[in-house]
């Protein structure tokens, strides 16, 4: 039932977003371990999300996950080169789409 799923997902998302304001707003007393965790979590979570996106890549299949690997490499390398998020997303995604639709 998609509406129940949307309601639950929205409710949990909104709860997460409001929680820090309910807990700490105006008091200025954020516990030190949480501050440190807040500083190191974003890059760690991005790594997890990249792996999450690639969780089903067919390493042992006929393509040996080359479209995924090349897509990630082109996205990352072009970002290091140009520092342009949109350009890199477009380049990696278009390459991936061309590879899965025409080559593999």
């Amino acid at each position, binding site marked *: 039932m*998609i*509406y*129940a*799923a*949307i309601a*639950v*997902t*929205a409710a*949990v*998302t*909104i709860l*997460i*977003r*409001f*929680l*820090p*304001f309910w807990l*700490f*707003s*105006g008091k*200025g007393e*954020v516990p*030190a*371990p949480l*501050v*440190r*965790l*807040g500083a*190191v*979590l*974003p*890059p*760690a*979570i*991005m*790594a*997890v*999300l*990249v*792996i*999450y*996106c*690639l*969780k089903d890549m067919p390493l042992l299949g006929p393509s040996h996950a080359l479209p995924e690997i090349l*897509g*990630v490499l082109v*996205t990352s390398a072009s*970002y*290091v080169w140009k*520092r342009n*998020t*949109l350009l*890199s*997303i477009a380049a*990696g*995604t278009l390459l*991936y*789409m061309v*590879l899965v*639709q025409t080559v593999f």
Partner: protein
Amino acid sequence: MRGDTLRKVLPKTIPVFIGYLFLGIGFGILLKEIGYGFFEVFLMSFFIYAGSMQFAAISLLKAGASLGTFALTTLFVNGRHFFYGLAMADRYKEKGWRKALLVHELTDETFALVSSEEDMTSEERLAVSLLDHSYWVLGSLLGVALGTAFPIPSEGVEFVMTAFFVTVFTDQWLTRKDHIPALCGLFTAIVCRFLFGSGNFLIPTMLVLTVILLFCSGRKKA
């Protein structure tokens, strides 16, 4: 929203406009592909308004996951938003609906924009937040429209999500000196992926990772 405020913040939001349009279209097309339309896409983009979780929800919907799985996955995929709130708790002093909108609209991209400038006014932060949210809703609805109008070859369009996280990951790698958290994340996720399988590894990964990072960051500062 005042005209001069809009003129000042609109240029700042252009990268988010293009990104959200692109990702939103991808999301709209994918949700359309599994049989849903404008109404469901609008509900998700307006009330959930979290790109990564909306993409994850597509997989969960396809798999027929339980509501508990939706709740737990949301907790772990969107858990990072808690820390954006933590960072803005002292700056967002608004009340009522303005506060509610600012808090609900604090996505990765909006956080990047509103947290990077200390002297941004309350009005400007609200304008950025509202603009970004409208781009996301617009993009995802456009995805449904495009998916309906043209039978475009969309196979592989889901890679926009992967590419998006790769750019954020790469950016954080380049701008941060400490690579330990990113490496912990990569290592934990890969190990858990092979231990727990592709359907069940996200939650154990986040739990293990939180413990590792609490321990590491606590020791380093001690």
